[in-house]
């Protein structure tokens, strides 16, 4: 059971940032090992890339992108929180403006990709 003092957004943001950071730290050595196969064993790399086309690995890649995204934006959030001497209201407005901009930009990107 989650203790009451941890049931709020900023604690959850900390937890997601920490969790995504640990998961990425575990992923990166494996990532570099696979990349190194290009030099040491190209045939094994081709085999791995073929294996990686399975739907379940594709789904896992989505999870990886999610982790990257969470960690990236969590880091930006933390830097804004700690490095900008703004009032909480100013920071909320800035976060809303950034989220709105991201939404519009992503919508434009997806619409363009569909048209192409």
């Amino acid at each position, binding site marked *: 059971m989650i203790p009451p*003092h941890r049931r709020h957004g*900023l604690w959850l943001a900390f937890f997601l940032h920490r969790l995504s950071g640990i998961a990425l730290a575990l992923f990166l050595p494996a990532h570099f090992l696979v990349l190194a196969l290009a030099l040491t064993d190209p045939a094994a790399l081709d085999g791995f890339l073929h294996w990686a086309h399975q739907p379940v690995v594709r789904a896992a890649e989505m999870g990886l992108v999610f982790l990257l995204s969470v960690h990236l934006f969590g880091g930006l959030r933390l830097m804004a929180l700690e490095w900008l001497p703004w009032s*909480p209201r100013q920071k909320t407005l800035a976060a809303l403006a950034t989220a709105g901009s991201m939404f519009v930009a992503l919508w434009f990107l997806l619409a363009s990709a569909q048209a192409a």
Partner: protein
Amino acid sequence: MSDGIDNAAATDTLDVRVWRGDERGGDWHAYRVPAAANQTVLDVVTWIQRHREPNLAYRFACRVGVCGSCAMSVNGEPRWTCRTHVQDAARDGVLRIGPLRNLPLVRDLACDMAPFFDRWQEAGGRFVPSSDRHADIAAISPESPARRIADAAIQCINCAVCYAACDVVQWKPDYLGPAALNRAWSLVNDERDAGNKDRLRAVAGDAGCHNCHSQHNCTRYCPNQLDPGASIAGLKRTTMKAALKGQL
């Protein structure tokens, strides 16, 4: 002296569990306490001490949210009990009242506050005068930016609610904690103070402000609605600038 409960008006009872014991161990004890309108958690504890458990150890003084001595854990959350109404704190009709987290226990609901106040000293929480008593009174505009920042952090009542709420204090017991760092931030912005060189060195150390993970439990629970999380962020910025200038 009234114990805060009008027994004649009481029509119902509260289900109250109080933690009793010391550092060696203890257990939750159950009590039925008469319910009343506008009843605070401190009223409930006082009723139990006066009517059921004369040797129940707890701490209070002013009963009006000024002295900061009555903080306890209420249903797992740190609270100033004299200003916490039972109806706001009860969960499913039950009140579980225990000692604050992150502090050594004296007995029952009374914690040893010494480590908490030691952190204030370690963080440079003592005012260092820049002039003596013969000098004129310093003219500080209440509207000056530095004074506004100092004023925003100054109303701390030393209740240790933020210290008990902080997970970093739990994980790293020598961490200075939100209250001491908030006090240091107030003094960093006090134009009359001359102790910033040592103070910034203290708060930038291994146990200092850079341990904070910005979970902001302190800000969430501060009963005086201060923002120790913002104070700690201010110290992070100031110590980083000082480090870049080679002043630490």
